[in-house]
């Protein structure tokens, strides 16, 4: 991944006068034609996001978030910048996908994530934050058997996992940036109620709007 990122930094920037792609990569709300990839690792979670701008601050987003050997959450959705200026932006995002958790507390089901991402941007560095809420539905099947036959019914349970993250982003080139941060995920509020504090570091690369 580092080699790929360095390759992109060596290519001539098609939009050198524009903002660094770091701001869009960190928060979202890309300009039309702008794209980015955000790769983050740390403890205990990792994340990978790919976004492309389609105009008016909308960015379809593909995301993979997880905790190694335990939980993985692929999602697809959109981000939208609702406030945007030279000093920062505010981005909302909504993604839908799946949640798979292995181990003794195995569970799987459709998942919906909503986040708000404020960003304060300077010339070469900025501050990012992310507040999110994940809602997962777990389906259960009950089969009732009797002398008269069998009957299948379905029920659903809801799991809520909010998350908070914040940190700094550092622009290396218009196409490349680094980020560090802290995050706290609350797993399954009301049932397991496990909180996972963690740290992360990431690499973002992409291209500005043509």
């Amino acid at each position: 991944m580092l080699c790929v990122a360095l390759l992109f930094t060596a290519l001539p920037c098609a939009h050198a006068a524009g903002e660094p792609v770091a701001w869009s990569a960190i928060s979202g709300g890309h300009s039309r034609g702008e794209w980015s990839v955000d790769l983050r690792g740390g403890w205990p979670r990792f994340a990978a996001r790919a976004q492309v701008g389609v105009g008016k601050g909308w960015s379809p987003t593909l995301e993979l978030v997880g905790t190694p050997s335990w939980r993985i959450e692929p999602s697809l959705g959109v981000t939208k910048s609702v406030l945007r200026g030279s000093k920062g932006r505010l981005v909302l995002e909504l993604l839908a996908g799946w949640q798979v958790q292995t181990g003794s507390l195995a569970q799987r089901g459709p998942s919906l994530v909503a986040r708000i991402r404020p960003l304060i941007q300077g010339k070469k560095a900025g501050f990012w934050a992310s507040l999110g809420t994940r809602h997962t539905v777990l389906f259960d099947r009950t089969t009732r058997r009797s002398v008269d036959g069998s009957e299948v019914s379905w029920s659903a349970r809801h799991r809520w996992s909010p998350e908070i993250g914040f940190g700094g982003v550092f622009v290396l080139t218009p196409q490349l940036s680094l980020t560090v941060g802290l995050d706290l995920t609350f797993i399954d509020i009301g049932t397991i109620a496990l909180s996972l504090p963690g740290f992360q570091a990431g690499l973002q690369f992409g291209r500005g709007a043509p």
Partner: protein
Amino acid sequence: MSGCRLAPLSSLLLLISVLGSTACVNEDIELWEVTLEITVASDDESIEAGPLFIELHHREVGTGELTYPLALIEAFEAVGPGSFVHSFDYPAHAGTGLVAYAWRDLDEDALLCAPGAAEEPVGASEVSDLESYSPQVLILLDHTCIGPERFTFPSDTN
């Protein structure tokens, strides 16, 4: 006349619903509606009918090295010695077999053989023919003051 044609979006939503419901089952619960005909008897004719505590257990739960004998399904009160019928949902997904355990509360203190109290008769029996959904079981109160774990019931693997 052409068959029913769903719009592409409706087809996609239907596919997602079917896949979602079949590919992401978490708890897979199987309940059998069982009506159990229980007869509690004693060779001691001096034991009159009175409070009777009944417990229904899986014969064993778990698999492999984690197999464990007896897991309580439900407990209820009855009057006996005598015969009565009890209907319940047998959780077939949670274990195998069914054991019925009973004890006669002679001093009516709701405690089995409390210190200083009289010895109280107990008995247990495994229920066969569970898949008929209306099995019969005879529990003979031929022991005193022991819990269901003191009875042994061979597992299917033995």
